[in-house]
């Protein structure tokens, strides 16, 4: 037999349950609209109040950014996000931790997973800006950007510009030879055989290449281009 106190407890429990459901509804649990990234704070210096742990803050922001596609039980496409905000947040992360490879890897491999070529170009420009800020640290992402602009954007002139920047701004010893080879390979694809041959010859004459396989590759390549 239900007593007054048990009835009262049931009513209170039901009332709290209704409050909970109402609160969840207000929070937008049933809302299927895509949540956009919040904009970067107007006064970015507020992020400097990070308890002297800028690296931790940068990594936390990066993990938050990369998992932003997982929202309230649904997975969204990166296409649906505002790429200007993504780039602003990546810039903040890079400012907090200048030597981290994380923002550039996500820029070049994660946020370029979109059919929108304009968005891919925005990410490549972000990588290019980061490369110019620290060429020796970020040359490999510049190399990835060259591949993307050539094969995804089909913009061979832009790919050549990126390849020229890579060779011009980095020290020979810090960059892998396969990355340096991209410039003459792109010139060859463009039909600029003379320019390509000159580049290979200058590489061989510089004496900086010591690996036998690389020397063999460049020599054979030079002969092949001369035949063309």
């Amino acid at each position: 037999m239900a007593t007054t106190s048990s009835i009262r407890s049931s009513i209170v429990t039901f009332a709290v349950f209704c409050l909970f459901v109402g609160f969840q509804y207000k929070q937008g649990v049933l809302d299927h609209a895509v949540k956009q990234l919040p904009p970067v704070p107007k006064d970015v210096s507020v992020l400097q109040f990070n308890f002297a742990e800028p690296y931790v803050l940068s990594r936390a922001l990066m993990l938050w950014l990369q998992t932003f596609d997982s929202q309230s039980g649904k997975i969204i496409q990166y296409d649906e996000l505002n790429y200007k905000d993504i780039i602003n947040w990546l810039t903040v992360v890079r400012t907090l931790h200048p030597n981290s490879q994380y923002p550039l890897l996500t820029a070049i491999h994660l946020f370029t997973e979109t059919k929108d070529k304009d968005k891919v170009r925005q990410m490549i420009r972000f990588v290019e800006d980061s490369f110019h800020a620290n060429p020796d640290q970020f040359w490999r992402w510049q190399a990835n950007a060259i591949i993307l602009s050539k094969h995804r954007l089909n913009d061979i002139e832009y790919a050549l510009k990126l390849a020229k920047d890579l060779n011009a701004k980095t020290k020979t010893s810090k960059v892998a030879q396969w990355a340096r080879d991209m410039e003459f390979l792109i010139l060859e694809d463009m039909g600029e055989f003379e320019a390509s041959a000159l580049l290979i010859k200058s590489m061989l004459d510089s004496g900086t290449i010591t690996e036998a396989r690389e020397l063999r590759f460049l020599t054979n390549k030079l002969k092949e281009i001369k035949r063309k």
Partner: protein
Amino acid sequence: MVGLIIKYTIIEAYKKHFFTLLLSAFITCIVLGYYAKSISIIEGSETFNYFYNAAMRLTAVFLLAWYCIITQAQQIEKARLQMQMALPISRTWFCVGSLSAYYVIALFIALLSSLPFVFAIDVDGLAWFFSFYLELCIVVSMAYVLSLLFKQATIAISIFTLIYIFSRNAAEFTRHADAVLGTESQLFETVSLWIIKLTALLVPKLENYANSLVLESGLEIEQYLTLITETSLYVVLLFLIAKIELHKKVL
């Protein structure tokens, strides 16, 4: 006598399950670090180091400080401090003994916290351990003094938390204050900003102690010496304040 104080303080900490709590916190921080590492795409070990370092540092500091404050507040409340003052030991040595006990506990915490960095590559675990231990010494001295100054544990804990948060961001507060003072500002604003600058001058620069930057780039000899000097000055100053408070309490 000092040895006895140290021994019984550590036994008390053990009986109050402080070390069990510390071990649980340590395991939680390791798990947090590994979770962050598992969801990061690149630089996994760095991610673990950063998250573990931040979590363990905050946890250890607050656990030790709050334990010190609560224990001292209980001793004052239950008149046990007055009983201990009646023992044939000078105030100075009593203070030395009490603080030394907490420094021994701090050493244990620093050693335990540094374990994950022992086998890590590209991190200067020794520099981190050293600077973390010095930070814990300052923190526990501050907590001890606050517990003697304010008999209520809640007030002491709140003030400690505020001072610690300020100390970790002192450079940023000062920079912000300098930037605003250069412009036209109202009297109230100017006074507040000068108070911030003065406080930044008085508090220890805890941002220079164990953090991710120390872990990655280590410390130079000059930095070691600066940390030792700063820590010694603060610890001696706080010890003298504690001694004065203990004398007042007897009276």
